[in-house]
Every structure is written in C-alpha cells, then in structure tokens.
C-alpha cells in the first residue's frame, strides 16, 4: 500500500518531481589562510519519493551539505530550494516554521529531549506548530508508530530505551508531520549491526510504504545499500550521483574518488 504526498515541486510537465535542489552551493569556514572550503559549488537535484544516501570520506563535506539543504546552516554562496521554497529568502522565524512543516531530522545521537517521553518526543513538532491531534494526525501518528513498532514503548523516556529504539523514536518524530524531506545524518553511527539493519529497514519502509523522501548521510557501504540512489561527494564537490547502483558500482565510485582526490 502506497501513500503519496502532494508535492508542490512536482513539475506540471511531468518530469521527475524534485524534493530539493541546490545550485552553486558553497560553504567556507573562516577566512584568509585559515579558510576551510567545506563545500565548493555543489549542484544537486534530489528526486521525491526516493531514498538517497550521501557518501564520502570523513571531512568531505557530507554533514555540511546536509545542514545547508536543511536550512540549519547558511551557505556562503548558492541557493537551496526545498519543496518549491528558496530557503535563502526566509528569515530565522520563517525558516524555523518551514523546517517544522516540511522537514524531518534524524541525527547520529542526541535526538530526543531527555525529559520527554517517547510519545511526547514524537509529537513535539506538532505541538510546536500548535497543531491539535485531530483525526488525520492521530491516524498518521498511529500508523507511523505501528510501522516503527513503538506502540508499547511510548510512555518511556529516552533514558529507558535502547539506542536502536531511540533512533526509531527519532524516525517516528521525523515522519509524523509528513515532511517533504527527511534528513538523517549517520543515523546508525552509534548502533550495532542488528539495530542498524532495523533502523535502515524502517527508513526504507518509510519511503516505500509512506511515500517519504529520505536523504541519509553515511559512510558505511552496508547502510548505503538500503538506499535507492547514492550521491558521492569528496572535497566539497559532488563526484557522482548514482541511480539504483549496485554495491560494486558504489564501491568503484568511492575508490575512484579516493584515488582521484
């Protein structure tokens, strides 16, 4: 069963619907001799309804790219458009509201507010937006919770959950608002292989069954194998955008970069 979103960025001409685009994205930290060029002019189109993995060596700029795409960080140059809205045109409050309504996040660790229960953490974005738990959102909540298998852990606090369960709560929170785009930065970095598989499986199910768009930063091949597409980045530039690649193709792309870099 497949639930699709109404995507405002779907082109009337019927081309692939884009969840996000970046043009000439540049991010420089510091200046002068100390300047670090984390991103050097990235152009990227992320199609809707797909699970994209961003891969690259440590320090290659993956996290920076994600932060810029998510409006958490201001690029030095370039533009980001998400769900039809150019992020650079928004002030802080508008940007926050935009994030709240159109984006979801899953981080490597420290995803949840320790003083809230799992249920409260999941519902947090709705509460921040002042949305009441009406029929439609309740249905969505129940569905997400059911898909992620969290129903019996909802009244526990993060401290009482395992790492994998915590990540599942974070995923539920990212999905409950039906965001146009879910970002995940190394969501399995702290997990063992079984929990990793579990979490990645859920992310994939959210794309397949809930129709979400997910962008995941990772440096594990294993993790990337759950994704539909793989973006390889090195030294602040996109080196390859592979659609439905085989593991070998991804490995080759990564190797190529290492040699090339």
């Amino acid at each position: 069963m497949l639930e699709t979103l109404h995507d405002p960025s779907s082109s009337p001409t019927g081309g692939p619907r884009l969840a996000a685009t970046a043009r000439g994205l540049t991010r420089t930290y510091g200046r002068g001799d100390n300047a670090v060029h984390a991103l050097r002019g990235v152009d990227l189109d992320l199609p809707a309804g797909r699970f994209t993995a961003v891969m690259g060596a440590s320090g290659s700029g993956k996290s920076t790219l994600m932060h810029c795409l998510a409006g958490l960080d201001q690029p030095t140059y370039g533009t980001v458009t998400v769900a039809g809205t150019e992020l650079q045109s928004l002030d802080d409050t508008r940007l926050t509201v935009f994030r709240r309504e159109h984006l979801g996040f899953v981080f490597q660790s420290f995803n949840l507010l320790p003083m809230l229960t799992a249920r409260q953490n999941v519902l947090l974005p709705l509460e921040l937006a002042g949305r009441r738990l009406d029929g439609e959102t309740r249905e969505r909540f129940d569905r997400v919770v059911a898909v992620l298998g969290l129903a019996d852990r909802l009244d526990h606090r993060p401290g009482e959950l395992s790492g994998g369960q915590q990540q599942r709560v974070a995923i539920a929170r990212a999905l409950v608002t039906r965001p146009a785009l879910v970002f995940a930065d190394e969501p399995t970095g702290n997990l063992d292989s079984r929990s990793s598989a579990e979490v990645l499986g859920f992310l994939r199910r959210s794309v397949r069954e809930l129709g979400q768009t997910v962008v995941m930063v990772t440096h594990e091949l294993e993790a990337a194998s759950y994704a539909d597409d793989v973006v390889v980045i090195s030294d602040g530039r996109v080196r390859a955008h592979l659609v439905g690649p085989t593991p070998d193709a991804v490995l080759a792309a990564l190797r190529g970069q290492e040699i090339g870099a």
Partner: protein
Amino acid sequence: MRTVLLASLRTHTRRYVAAALAVAIGVAFVVTTGILSSATKDGMVSSVGVPYENADLVVSGLDGDQAAAVVERARERGDHASVLGWSLLPLAEDGRRVSDRVEVGALADGEALRWQELRDGTFPGQAGEAVADVNAAKSLGLEVGDRLQVGTGARAADVTLVGLVDTPSASVAADLYLPWDAVAPIARTLYVDSIAYDVAGPADPQVRPLERFSGATVQAADQFVVDRQAEITKDVDIVAIVLLVFATIALFVAVLVIANTFSILFAQRARDFALLRCVGATRRQVLRSVRIEGLVLGLVAAATGVLAGTGTGHLLVAVARDRFDEGTIGEPSPSAGWYLGGLLLGVVATVAASWFPTRRVVAVGPLEALQPAGAVDPRTPAGVVRLAAGVLVLVAGVAALVLAMADHEVPPMLAGGAATFTGVLLLGPVLVPPLVRLAGLVSGRLLGSPGRLAAANAVRNPRRTAATTASLLVGVTLTTAVLTGMATSRTAVDDEMDQSHPVDLTLTSTGAELPATLLDDVLATDGVRAAAALPGTTARVSGIGEVQLLAADRAAVDDVVHGEPAIVVPGPDQVLVPWDSLGAGQAGGDQVRVTVDGTARTLTLRGGDGWGSAAVVAPETLTALTGGAATGTRSVWVQAEDGADPEDLGGDLDALGAPAGAELANGLGERAWVYLQLDVLTASVVALLGIAVVIALIGIGNTLGLSVLERGREHALLRALGLTRRQLRSLLGAEAVLLSVTATLLGTALGIAYAWVGVRTMVEPAVEAATLQLPVPQLVVVVLVAAVAGLLACVLPARRAARTAPAAGLALE
C-alpha cells in the same frame, strides 16, 4: 511547547531548589518584617493610652524636680497626678546585690490613675512597700514578701515586696514601683516621660495655670495619646525600613544566585534548546518557554517565602509576647500590601535575574544540537562591553569616594561605594580567577593533584566563577565594613567613657570614716587592678547640703583613673560636684561656700561625673578646711582588671563596703552597659547581614552541585584513571573552599577599604585623629566561617559525585 515546559519544570525542579530557596529566604525576610512591625505597632499603639485612661491632662517635657512640684500642687488642690517615669537604681535583696540597674517608677496615689494591673498580692498600703512587674520579678528572681534595698548609701530605701503587677504599657513601664512618697526624695534622678493629671473639676481652665506653673507642655489626655501613637507608628516604621534595607541586600544576593543558576542551567541545556530549534521551535517559542519557567520558579519561590515568612513572623511574635511586657507586642495584622509586596518582589527578582541568561538562550542556533556531545562549550568569555563599563564605573566611584573624604559628605560616599562595588562585580571575570589561581597554589601544596585540579576547575569558566563569588562578596564586604567601622567608632566611645566614667568603681563613706583595712581588702579582691584610698571629711556645700568631701591627690589617683587625671583632680580653689547633685539653679562656675566644722571657704563649683556622690577638692584645700587635723579614709577608688565582670566585682566590693556603711558607685557597670549596647547593635547588623551570607553560601553549593552534574563524565574518567573516592571529594571540597575563601578575602579587603573611607568621611570631623581599628580576631572568624561554610556547601554535591560509579558516569550523555 506546553509539554516541553511542564516536562522541563518537572525534570529540573531539583536543580532549581537552591535558587528558589534563595528567593524564598529574601521574601520571608520581608514578610516577617511586616508581621513584626504590625504586631509591635498594634501592641505599643493600643497600649499607649492605658496610663492616661482616667486623666484629663498630660504634662510632658519636664524633669524630676519639676514633676515633684507638680505632684505637690495637685495634692494641695485636691487633684491627682501620677508621674510616669523611672530612675535606674541598684537593687539588693537582704544585702545581696540583685542588679545594678533596675527601673524604679512611682505608683499613683489614687486608684483612678493607677494603671498597673494587680496579678498577685496587694498594692502598697503604707510606706516601705512596693510592687514589681511580673516579668521583671521573674528575671530578677523576686517573690512577694522579699525584703529589698533600693539604691545605695544615704538614699537607700528598704521596702517589702507586697505584690506583682502587669504593666500593659511599653512606653512608661518600670521594673519596680514604689509609692510616690518613697520616690519623691530621689525625684531629681527620675527620667520623667509625662504626668497623668486628673483635675477635680472642669479640666480646661486648668491648662494655662498648669502650663505656667510647670513650664512644661500641657495637653488634653486624648490629644497626647493621639500624638504619641503617631510618634510610635513613625518609629516602628523607621525600624521596619531599616530591616527592609537588609531584606533588599538579601534579595540582591538572591538575584545574583538565581541569575547564576539560570546561566549554568541554560548552558547545560544548550543542546536541548538547539534540538528544539531543529525540530521547529522558533526563537520566540524557546524564549517564552524559558521565561515562563523563570516566572513559575519565581511564583513558587515567592509563595514559599510568604508562607515561611508568615510562619516565622507569627512564631517570633508568640515568643516575644511570652517574654515581653503586655503592651509591647500585640496582634500581628500586617496589611495585605506586605504579602503582595513580598510576593511581587520575589517574582520580579526572579524574572529580572532570569532576563539576561534567557537572552543568551536564544543565541543558541539549531546547528549546535548536531555537534558531538561536549562540543558545546559552556564557557562564556567576559564581554568587552562589560569590562569597559566595569572600569568606567570603578573609576567614577573612586572619584566620588575621594570627594566624599575631602568634603566629609555622606551622599557621595554612598554613591561612590555603590559604584565601586558594581565596578568590582563587573570586573569579576578578570579579577577573581587570578585570585583563585593564587589561592590554588596553596591548595595545590596542601592537597597535591586534587588541589591543583580544584583550582583549575574553579576558574574554568571565569564568568561563572565571578558570579558565584559575587554573591558571597556582597555579604562579606558589608560585614567587614560594619565590624571595622564599629571597632573604630568604639575608640571614640572609649575616649568619651574615660571622660564620663574616669573611675571604674568607688566605695564612699556615707558619714563615718572607713576602716583602714578596707584598702587592703579591696586590693585582695579578684578583678581589682589598682586601688587608692582618698582622705576626706563631712562638709556642707551651699545650695547642695551635707556631702562627703574627698581630697584627690594627683599622684595618688593617677593609678586608678582612666585617661587624664585632671578630670577628677580639681584646682586649689575649685570644688568638684556630681552633676546630678547640683542644687536647683546651680551651674558650673558658680561660687559656693564649703564649710567644715565652722571653717568656711568660697570655692568655684565644677560639675563632673564618675566617682559617686561625693564632692572632691584638692589636698591643700582640704587641709585648709580642716585646719590641718588628721583625716581618715572616706573613699576607696578602684580600677578593675581588663575583662573583670562588672556585676561580680560590684557585688564583691559592695559586700566589703556595706558593713562599713560605704556606698558603691559602679562606673564599670555603666561602661559595660554602653559597650553592651554597641555589641548588640553590631551583632544585630551582622546577624541581619548573615541572612545574605547564608543565601550566598547556598549559591556556592548550588553552583558546585550543577557543575558536578555537568562534569559527570569527567569525574568518571578521573575515577577510572585512578582517582580515589576520597580524592574526588577533596577535589570538590577544595574547589568550594577556594571560591568561598577568595570571595571572603576580597570582601574583607574591600570592606576594610570602605570602612576606612567611612571613618575618614563620617568619624574624622567628629573625633580628631580617628584611626582605623581592625577587629582582627573578628575578621579572622569571618574568613574561617566562610571557609567552613564553603566546605559544608559542597558536602551534598561531593557525596553525589563520589557515589556515582565510574561506569555509570562514563555512560552519561
């Protein structure tokens, strides 16, 4: 956002306890003040009228002699007059001194003006009987039937206690009441508050004649009572305002403590805030949430304070009513304003204290949630603006202080004091850490690596270090300034005491020669440092009557007189007479005739004080008056050892002198009484400031407790690397002591500086060559108390830190 707010309130409650306690104490202080002042007002105001209930007129503003004249006149006319006042006299029971100073008042002749209420026994029916106040009797150990001697020497009166009374008026109450006829002989020594006057007939026509007769103020009784009530209300209000000043100091310290608590808590929760921002909380939402948190804390703390203050106030009132005369403390009925004001003050203080820390919260960007744990540095550098402002304010303040000292003006001194102190607080982040580091050298020596680590930890966050020490600095600076100022003004009081009480104790004959052995007996008494026997005789002085005339030889009395002996050694043509035995209309400089056995001399009258009731002349004058006949000892003058107990020594000497008919004058007791007043004043001020110090120490414990939570991983790592539990505890203890001792030393230095400025400004114009006196032992006690209290403050956090197992600490996120 409500869920977040409620959850964080629930989760962080424990971390807010100390801050809430600080506010609550300040608020409780305010409310207690309100309750006490209202109860005092109620008691005093409602009791003012009691002694005047049946009086038509009130005569006030007159002395004992005038009062005696008014009573005489009333008796002649068939009116009634009751003298309301007292004389401080020694009291003995069967020859044993009970007290050096008992308030002896007069009982009205007629029933109508007798306002005391009989509790036991009867009112005096004849001369030689007396009644005592119930409470005074309890504290002096008197019972109905006791035989008492009131006063000493010639004017001593023997009375039997026949009853106990309640005295339901605070303003004119005494300990012991004698019938007027027994008081009349000592009328001159009376302090007269007023006379209740009952006219036998219409009162109005009597106002003018009475006014003309007495030369005093005559008012209708109702009017007098109304005026007196207004006066008392004003006095109580002034006391309440003084107390509120201390409450303000306490609240100010509380504000420092809360501001620091918020800063620390918010720094620790920066990642929470960042995460909230990530998942879509706007800046305003986060800001509103933390501000409501502050508001709730303020409300809860202030309400707790109001409750605690109400409880404390009622408790104090109950204790006071039990111990004081009826008519001092009444029903506490503070206006709602006190409660509301206290509540408001607490809330405003908390919200104001949270303002700047909450502003820093919104500076947290969403990205900070994505940094690995520990990357969010709670370190806050001291802002340049803050430092510049600090220097500016400090320089302006010093200028004001210099001006104050030059012109002897108090307002610039207060302004300068406030400004320099603000400057020091602002400069704290650059001023305090080096001092802590300096003190850390010592702790490193003493404790080894935990000591050095403690010093490093204490200065890790300069702003936090400064804020933590600032709260203690306030209390210690003020305490030191008060102690030093008091010690210095005490030297001025010393000079004055030497003037008014040149001799500690005297035993003076009441008519006969004293035994030759008396001097040796006196010298053998414990607590006597030196004694001198003075020869003399009985003489008559015109306008005064029969007196003992002593000859003071400069060389002989030099040893027993405080200060300059000339005070008690008259010139050859002078006679020195106590001020209170001067006859009506007599004054210093008058010529008087002094007669001994028919030989008379005209001498210049000089008034003085402090050697009893005898008159004093130069030795050659006495020789001339007695025609060279031998004169025996008529008085023994005594200087006590330092620290001798005035009551004990007085009692011992009285026991020696009484069989020989000698009268004791106890200047040492008077001196001790004055010093006691000073000590009580100092102690009250220090105790009131102590509340601010307690709040500050709660603050230090709190900072440390919060830091311990923050450093859980670090401590676990240290423990894993081999730091023992004991070492960890001493690490935290050393940190607390470093902070409190540094604050105390800095505060002591500042306090001494302020005391110096205060002395130069206020005391120097009055007392020449006033030099700063450092009460070194007291200051040492202040430093030690701060150090020990600092240690106590860290007990709880240190225990918690040491209890956590290393593995649990490392697992902390």
